[in-house]
């Protein structure tokens, strides 16, 4: 929770396990083979304390900067969002999940990064994986098979359209 990881090593797999109301934000440049992952906990920081990865308002620009540093090109960046669920219907629940998702989408729009797939909302937990070797992004829910959200291989820029898939609930 609250961590940011960036890698350009083909052997690495970046994982955010058991995302509930948190958002796993994956940013990849498939052509450069650079991937980044942030495990975002809350929509905004109230007092600027704590690591930047925990809060959407700070995590998005920091993750973008880190993948660019690692060799990614901004216009090739693709984002995938997973999580943002509403796990418990508790009275007075703050609905952090949907607020997290809105804050991350807002941050990505400001950074000029397009979202190519998402699996968000509902009341289920999810695990997100990025295989850095080909930047394929997969997701699974508890006890369910793995789904591909972004196909691997550096198809940019020859492929005019990237595969788009949304399983938002």
């Amino acid at each position: 929770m609250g961590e940011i990881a960036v890698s350009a090593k083909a052997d690495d797999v970046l994982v955010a396990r058991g995302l509930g109301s948190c958002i796993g934000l994956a940013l990849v440049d498939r052509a450069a083979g650079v991937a980044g992952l942030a495990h975002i906990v809350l929509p905004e920081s109230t007092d600027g304390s704590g690591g930047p990865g925990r809060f959407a308002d700070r995590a998005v620009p920091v993750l973008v900067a880190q993948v660019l540093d690692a060799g990614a090109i901004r216009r090739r960046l693709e984002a995938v969002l997973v999580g943002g669920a509403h796990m418990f219907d508790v009275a007075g629940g703050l609905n952090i999940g949907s607020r997290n998702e809105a804050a991350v989408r807002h941050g990505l729009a400001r950074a000029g990064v397009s979202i190519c797939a998402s699996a968000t909302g509902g009341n289920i937990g999810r695990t997100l994986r990025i295989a850095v070797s080909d930047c394929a992004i997969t997701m699974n829910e508890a006890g369910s098979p793995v789904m591909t959200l972004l196909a691997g291989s550096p198809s940019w820029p020859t492929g005019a359209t990237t595969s788009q898939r949304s399983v938002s609930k």
Partner: protein
Amino acid sequence: VTPRFTSTQLDALRELANIGSGTAATALAQMLGQEVNLTVPRALALPLADAVDACGDADDTVTAVLIPLEGDIAGVVLLLFQIDGARALCRLLGVEAGSEVGNSALREIGNILGTSYMNGLAAMTGLSMEPSPPHLTTDMLGAIVSSLLAQTVGASNMALVLDSELEVAHQPCSMSFLLLPMRGGASDLLAPLGLAQVEA
């Protein structure tokens, strides 16, 4: 703002968890007519990034009963059953695991145990604690615990987790009890014991 706990405070919190889970273990033993064993509880003050891992494997599917605490202290009591444990408990109760009746039975067990746990804490501290109606869900452990931590820790970077395990003797049935105090909840628990010097 990061709350820090001294070792004396963590000892006191562990003792509270011990009393709470001891009361719950007695209730469970009476309900099942079986011996129930209790492990020594842990009181963990951890960076958020490590808190979920301390509770178990984030990918594991577990059945959870969640009881929000209101009254003098705010927080959440969480009872976690491994799939096998939930199944064994349902068998002991003579209901089918995973069915509507099975879930309802687990929710009620969770309610009784959670309430016993709170009663143990309340008796020790003199605080009033009102359990809200229980919620039951089966999902990834990480998704359940992290979503609760997100609500309970606020801007703090540290999570306080009180963890105890109950085990029904001679049965493949164990469950963990977690108390996740909301911001300020830990100070409120410690204050009646004369130990409330928690920052944040």
